[in-house]
């Protein structure tokens, strides 16, 4: 590293930051500006002939008025999926970090294994699993755990289950990273200092794992809020999320200005929620 610094001279910092800055400049800042201008353009144009930028803030008013239920649904589904991921992910990450012993690496590989298959294919296979004449539904009906006319596919449950499944690894990995760092001696020290297992968890393990909890919930909640694959493959027209609206405005509707305005609103809402959340969790230093 020192050798590299010498070679690059006193401008080393700029040179090191350069490539990433260039990349982000081209693929983030420019599209962002394009998105913002499109969101303020007159929808009278078309994708082929272009839109004229007229500072048309009514686009925002229109999309909020038309699509607010989709925004609410997105955040509710993403919120439920995040909580489910936290519960499932925390227990699993805890087990991997403290109980897995020599199976630790294997278990971590298994957590990441789904990434070797495409997101789309995995979600499609959920469609098969949850299908009305699939083995799962048949079994549940046989066991009378489900009414005869009940179904799983094309329900909110399926959408939330899909979201939970797809984003679970993003919860587990940061949680594991933070739990694994906790010195087991601290647990012993707490036991020595009159803390029963519950108090040990609450006073030592949980606070020390908070960075992982915050990191994991953000990595789950943010992409889940904007997701449309799960809702479109596993849901029905009444379970559509804001991502589905944006997608159809862009594609079938060819209404770029409204689609862009809805995207910006989604983004702003997520940023605001994340900031409030991180501040409340007392982990600002993560941002």
């Amino acid at each position, binding site marked *: 590293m020192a050798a590299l610094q010498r070679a690059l001279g006193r401008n080393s910092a700029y040179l090191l930051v350069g490539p990433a800055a260039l990349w982000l400049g081209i693929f983030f800042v420019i599209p962002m500006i394009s998105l913002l201008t499109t969101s303020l353009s007159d929808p009278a144009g078309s994708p082929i002939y272009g839109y004229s930028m007229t500072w048309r803030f009514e686009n925002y008013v229109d999309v909020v008025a038309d699509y607010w239920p989709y925004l609410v649904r997105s955040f509710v589904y993403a919120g439920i999926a995040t909580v489910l991921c936290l519960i499932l992910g925390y227990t699993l990450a805890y087990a991997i970090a403290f109980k897995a012993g020599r199976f630790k690496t294997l278990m971590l590989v298994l957590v990441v294994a789904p990434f070797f298959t495409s997101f789309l294919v995995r979600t499609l296979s959920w469609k098969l699993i949850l299908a009305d004449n699939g083995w799962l539904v048949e079994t549940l009906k046989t066991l009378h755990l489900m009414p005869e006319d009940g179904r799983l596919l094309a329900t909110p449950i399926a959408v939330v289950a899909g979201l939970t499944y797809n984003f679970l690894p993003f919860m587990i990995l940061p949680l594991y990273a933070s739990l694994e760092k906790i*010195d087991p*001696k*601290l647990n*012993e*020290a707490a*036991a*020595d*200092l009159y803390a029963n297992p519950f108090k040990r968890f609450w*006073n030592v393990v949980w606070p*020390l794992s908070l960075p992982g909890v915050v990191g994991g919930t953000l990595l789950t909640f943010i992409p889940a809020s904007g997701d449309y694959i799960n809702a479109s493959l596993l849901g029905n027209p009444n379970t559509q999320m804001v991502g589905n609206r944006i997608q159809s405005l862009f594609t079938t509707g060819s209404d770029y200005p409204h689609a862009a305005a809805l995207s910006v609103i989604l983004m702003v809402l997520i940023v605001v929620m994340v900031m409030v959340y991180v501040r409340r969790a007392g982990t600002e230093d993560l941002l």
Partner: protein
Amino acid sequence: MSLADGRTRDLRLAGLHKQYPNGFAAVQSLDLEIPQGSFFALLGPSGCGKTTTLRMVAGLEVPTAGTIHIGDQDITHEKPYKRPVNTVFQNYALFPHLTIAENVEFGPRRRGEKDVSAQAKEILELTELTEQASKKPAQLSGGQQQRVALARALINRPEVLLLDEPLGALDLKLRRAMQIELKRIQEEVGLTFVHVTHDQEEAMTMADTVAVMNLGVIEQMGTPYELYTNPRTTFVANFLGRSNLIKGTVLGREGSGADAVVKVDMHGTVVTISAARVHTESSEGWVGIRPEKVLIQPEGTPIDAPGDHFSGAVVTGSSYIGVSTEYELLMPWGQEITCFEQNTGRRGGLVPVGTRVDVSWRPEFAFLLDSSQDAEAGIQET
């Protein structure tokens, strides 16, 4: 030791045994009685079972067999958080997310005690940490962290305080200072301290009673003075300070009672050893003498001490340490022994290497150990 009303809270370990699932027996039928209010040290090399013993007392390890009592209370299988025992961990194990005050208050708060802050204030004063109260452990020096670990345990007024190599992470100077500090605090609070260490000097300067452990058993137990002056095994003789061990043949026993002595033929010279210092029944033994008890004088000049004399030794090496000089002497029978000489200035210089010297020591300083034991046992590589 025990009072008539049975209120003593001595720590008693009886037949304590710990075998790990891999078959390794860390502690083997250990019996110990540690009087209430004493400063007790468990001394031994790493892997001797001292830490395992401590962890069993703390409840962090379950004994395979045996019992642990405090007074009449059996705590062998009590959960760690229900024992009147606290531990100062080797690397302190301070809670990194809590302030010093919160670390110290951890125990009392978990027990749901009242006026915890007042107690914490008091203990922080005792350990001179008042100014650090609102800092996090990472902001403190090693010595300060050590004191936090101590304060965090002491605030609970445990019946027994366990210290697992508490000074091991400190540099030499700080370690010496903390030894005195710990001793002062122990005398002030009057709790039973059980201190685990591999540092013989630390054990000897601090503890009232020292138990020397090796391979899962206690080799010898006593005051530092007893252990040093009258070791019973070659391990203790070598682990606690250093010893010269010289092969000898037992000729016989003379006298009786306190005056009883054993005559030993040591390469042609007959030495007498007090029966109280003889720890073998066999006809052969190791005659032990501490290096600082060995006196030398260049051949031809009178040696001014009564005792067992040997002539014909040669100085083969010397290292000057300032306060003293360490000489290596080749004895006529071909064995090298060590002599520490105080640099009183009386000699007016060092004895040059190659000088032929007479060697002597007072017979009352010698001890006799079992010849079946390894003369190299307990020698520390440094």
